[in-house]
């Protein structure tokens, strides 16, 4: 996805340009909201598609009463732990498989077999093992995020410039030191790409897991409000989790650009 600053509106002074660009970027969303407002109650029944005005007042209500926060925090906690574990284990596994044949031979079959399985199909199994709740959701987020991180770390670690490895060797770096002094830093840009792919996947996996079975979290709120026919609340929670996911992706991109000053 491109950055907003990559395009230019001609003939405007620099400070105005930034503001103008932001406005232009949000125009499509504005159009959608307007069409939604018009369609609600005309093309589609208002009960099924509550208008943005109703949904936004419901969002304000959920936020002001603080009702949404306990669920949001639970959801974010599950994402944080699941994604964190997948980064830790994914990086170790990816680099390990790339640089050691026994490690690759051992884990390859598991990754090849689990790769095509939709991770949300494993939710019933996760519940069977771990019960309804946080642990099962963390497991699903972890499994869903693991592959993009392993694959990116693996490809990068396989492709590390041989001359960098030789450079370090000639300066006295041992094979074991090589992993964290050369291989790991050399793969950081691709690991960041893997995490960037994993962040939205984490949200998808989490909400799916919570929709299937849970007693807390944003997915649970979406499910229960839908079941009792409270569609404005259902829509409000969908908008909230979408906005949070959007902020998480943008926030990660900012952090990544700061970390990778050397690329």
């Amino acid at each position, binding site marked *: 996805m491109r950055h907003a600053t990559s395009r230019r509106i001609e003939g405007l002074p620099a400070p105005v340009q930034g503001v103008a660009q932001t406005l232009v970027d949000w125009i499509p969303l504005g159009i959608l909201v307007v069409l939604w407002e018009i369609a609600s109650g005309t093309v589609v029944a208002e009960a099924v598609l509550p208008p943005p005005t109703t949904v936004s007042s419901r969002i304000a209500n959920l936020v002001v009463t603080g009702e949404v926060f306990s669920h949001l925090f639970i959801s974010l906690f599950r994402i944080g732990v699941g994604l964190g574990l997948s980064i830790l284990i994914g990086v170790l596994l990816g680099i390990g498989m790339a640089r050691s044949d026994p490690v690759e031979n051992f884990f390859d079959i598991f990754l090849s077999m689990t790769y095509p399985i939709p991770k949300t199909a494993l939710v019933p199994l996760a519940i069977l093992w771990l019960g309804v709740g946080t642990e099962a959701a963390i497991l699903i987020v972890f499994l869903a995020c693991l592959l993009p991180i392993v694959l990116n770390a693996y490809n990068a670690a396989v492709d590390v410039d041989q001359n960098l490895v030789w450079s370090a060797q*000639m*300066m006295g770096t041992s094979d074991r*030191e090589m992993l964290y002094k050369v291989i790991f*830093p050399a793969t950081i840009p691709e690991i960041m790409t893997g995490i960037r792919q994993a962040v939205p996947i984490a949200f998808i996996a989490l909400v799916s897991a919570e929709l299937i079975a849970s007693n807390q979290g944003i997915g649970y709120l979406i499910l229960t409000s839908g079941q009792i026919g409270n569609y404005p609340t259902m829509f409000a929670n969908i908008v909230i989790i979408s906005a949070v996911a959007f902020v998480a992706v943008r926030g990660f991109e900012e952090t990544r650009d700061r970390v990778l000053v050397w690329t």
Partner: protein
Amino acid sequence: MDGRVTISELEKVYGEGAERTKAIEDLSFEVEGGEFVSVVGPSGCGKSTLLYLIAGFLDVTSGTIAVDGEPIDGPGTDRGVVFQDYALFPWRTVFENVTYGLEEDGVPKEERQSIAQKYIDLVDLDGFEDKYPKELSGGMKQRVGIARTLAYEPKILLMDEPFGALDQPLREALQDQLRDIWDDLGKTIVFITHDVEEAVYLSERVLIMTRHPGTKKTVTEVGLDRSGTREDIVTSDEFADYKNTVWKSLHEETQTEVKL
């Protein structure tokens, strides 16, 4: 002065079965301690392979390579390589690249900093210590590469077409800088190049290799008087003579290549 490299009956074969190719065959050669030797040869003659064998990055198929009489066993800090593509660590600043070898050697921090600064100054990069490699031009990157290798004080510098990717004025500036460094530090230098003029200008002896499989064809002693400026040297008759000698020998090899 140490840093003598002895190559005896060296053979290097890549691959197996039908893929088997002999890169180097029956090569014996000795580089004296503190000597500056260039290696030229047609492309594919195995000159870079020779350098990586001396560095210990590749294993010999048969024969031996010894440094000061001791057969080498893999890479070692007695030898330092300067790569054509610089091979700097992109996540480390200029300063951190230059201190890498010293860190690995366990040199205390303060000493590390003063040694690194000395070599950064030597290659005229003071003021660029905190830059990352991507912020530098090719010529500057290669000066970092040279400083990084000099900093941990190997006896032998192995240079793989280090100025091959640079334009002519920059090449000349770096050649002169390398000559000065060699005069000051007295390292053994093995310098791979395909540029005859560069080989004659820089080195005391030029090893010319045959094309595939590579082996020693001739060795030309370059007895140039190098007391003058670059202009004095390159416009002298003796420079032209040495250049012609090397060029003719190399040209015979290139001709064989064309006929095939």
